[in-house]
């Protein structure tokens, strides 16, 4: 055969495998409102940037009638490409090929691209759409999952890992996304659970739909397993592009600097916070007033909304924000909020992203359910994450900073590099009402008019202690600043911190309260 003929034969061979499970299966995928694995990759990556690996890999299973079954690419597409010019590694499970089921060769294609990503120090994106383990391959499928989890763990904190759930992801399969940094889900399409509704019904007699058990909304709002929630696949792919443009591509790099821009938010930063400390506001308005172009990519928006986390740019460079949200549960810290913030702080620290903390919190959430859910253990995660972090750490106390929450929200005592407080800040061991009740208990009880005395003592306490100047007099706060100065001072603080050099004692790894 001439080379020309060989080339034509290659093209033909490729065209067949690139069809995945064939026209019928592709039609079925479309009928479910889903893109195919190949369409997803091509939509996400820059045009003509995708290069596929291992197109011709075949399974080796000989039992259960598998010996005469040809599975295109063994049900997964892997390769490299670029997103806005930045190189990444990617794999996408192909549901049209035997339900995207995971056999040993399928898994080995994935682990090969993961190894590649780790070696090349580029982000790794996994698109999950699979019925689960390929039962015919038995323990070979389990081995495959285990080998993926092992690499997820080795890559953790070295390269960003992104999981996209665009179909079912059940049983062992869910643990790879859980080990990665960001999980994306889409309404009506994503389903994640360890044991599905059928098993739960046969074994335990509990009836529940797939959607109610582990649909996109459940993971975005209730479990916190998902970080980004979209209404369509296309919206989801856009979210991934935005995230990839914001985060550094490995732990040896900083985020890509873009042209610095001024905030465009129209509200005056001085008018966002109500003067009555009991009234809420949306803390994201403060973030919009601070970031370049007033842009903010919120992470885990629906889960534990009493704390806000996410990325924005300051002077063209990415920073991570952690902010109490008085709009929900008065902005208290609870189990979920601590968990959410702690993991985010560790991501920022691992990937050289400075952390800006905006504080307005009344304390930890009281309640039997919280105590029994382990608020001590979960709350400790935040203390650990902030203390451990060596990236630049800046705190602005906007209003309330009481008690244990004051310590937890990146206080000076946990190693904050810059501590700013607005003039209305109340930095105290507890809220004035509670403090007055304890300190002046005797006076209040002995007074003729208890309520009047209590009011008077609360007022006294507010005047003497519920302000930023006690903390400032001890040097716990570096400066009491005007709200309008905030952005300028943050830019200055980040600039001063550019070469921050902070070390921790040598250790194999810490033992955080997981």
């Amino acid at each position, binding site marked *: 055969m001439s080379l020309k003929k060989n080339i034509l034969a290659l093209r033909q061979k490729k065209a067949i495998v690139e069809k995945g499970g064939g026209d019928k299966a592709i039609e079925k995928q479309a009928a479910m409102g889903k893109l195919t694995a190949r369409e997803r990759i091509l939509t996400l990556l820059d045009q003509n940037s995708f290069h596929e690996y291992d197109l011709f890999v075949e399974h080796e299973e000989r039992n259960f009638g598998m010996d005469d079954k040809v599975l295109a690419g063994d049900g997964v597409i892997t390769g490299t490409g670029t997103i806005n010019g930045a190189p990444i590694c990617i794999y996408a499970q192909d549901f049209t090929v035997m339900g995207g089921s995971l056999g040993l060769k399928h898994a080995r294609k994935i682990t090969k691209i993961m190894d590649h990503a780790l070696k090349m120090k580029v982000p790794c994106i996994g698109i999950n759409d699979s019925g689960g383990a390929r039962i015919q391959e038995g323990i070979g499928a389990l081995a495959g999952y285990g080998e993926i989890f092992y690499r997820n763990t080795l890559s953790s904190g070295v390269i960003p890992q992104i999981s996209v759930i665009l179909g079912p992801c059940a049983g062992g399969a869910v643990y790879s996304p859980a080990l990665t940094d960001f999980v994306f889900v889409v309404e009506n399409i994503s389903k994640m659970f360890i044991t599905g509704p059928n098993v739960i019904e046969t074994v335990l007699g509990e009836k529940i739909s797939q959607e109610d058990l582990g649909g996109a909304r459940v993971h975005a709002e209730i479990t916190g397993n998902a970080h980004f929630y979209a209404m369509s696949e296309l919206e989801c792919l856009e979210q991934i592009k935005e995230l990839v443009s914001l985060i550094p591509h490995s732990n040896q790099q900083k985020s890509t600097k873009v042209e610095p821009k001024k905030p465009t938010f129209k509200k005056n930063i001085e008018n966002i916070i109500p003067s009555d400390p009991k009234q809420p506001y949306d803390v*994201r308005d403060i973030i919009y007033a601070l970031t370049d172009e007033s842009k903010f990519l919120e992470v885990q928006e629906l889960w534990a909304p009493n704390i806000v986390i996410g990325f924005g740019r300051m002077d063209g460079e990415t920073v991570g924000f952690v902010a109490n949200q008085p*709009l929900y*549960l*008065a902005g208290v810290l609870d189990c979920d909020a601590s968990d959410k913030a702690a993991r985010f702080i560790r991501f920022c620290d691992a990937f050289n992203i400075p952390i800006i903390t905006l504080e307005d919190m009344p304390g930890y959430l*009281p309640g039997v*359910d919280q105590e029994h859910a382990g608020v001590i253990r979960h709350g400790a995660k935040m203390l650990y994450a902030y203390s451990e972090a060596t990236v630049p750490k800046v705190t602005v106390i906007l209003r309330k900073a009481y008690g244990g929450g004051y310590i937890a929200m990146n206080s000076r005592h946990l190693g904050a590099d810059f501590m700013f407080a607005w003039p209305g800040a109340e930095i105290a061991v*507890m809220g004035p009402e*509670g403090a007055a009740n304890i300190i002046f208990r005797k006076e209040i009880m002995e007074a003729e008019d208890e309520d009047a005395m209590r009011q008077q003592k609360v007022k006294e306490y507010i005047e003497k202690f519920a302000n930023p100047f006690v903390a400032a007099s001890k040097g716990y706060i570096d400066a009491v600043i005007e709200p309008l100065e905030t952005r300028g001072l943050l830019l200055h603080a980040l600039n001063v911190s550019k070469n921050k050099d902070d070390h921790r004692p040598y250790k194999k790894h810490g033992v955080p309260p997981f």
Partner: protein
Amino acid sequence: MSENNIETPELVDFAVTARKYKTQLTKKFKNRKVWIESNPYEIQSFIPGTIIQISVNEGDIVKESDPLLILEAMKMQNRIEMPFTAKIKKINVTVGDRIPKDTIMIELESADE
């Protein structure tokens, strides 16, 4: 951005220590389980499962640690024992029943009466 947010959320009073704040509640918070002190005279299922054997009858006085029933769950036969000597007041399950977690399977009363 919130400036474009047209929905007006419902604010409720939310007590954190001595002060009440105006805020919104989350779905998860609203659905949280309220703690109830457990009643020692109620034998509850600690796991969902199937009743495969009942060893006592209503009216029996049963000694501490004697078997009451077997609750099969996750392929394991769990022997449920008497927590203290008492009289069986009521049995709410029959063999073959598939029950959820926290079902009151057996009610007890003091053996002295």
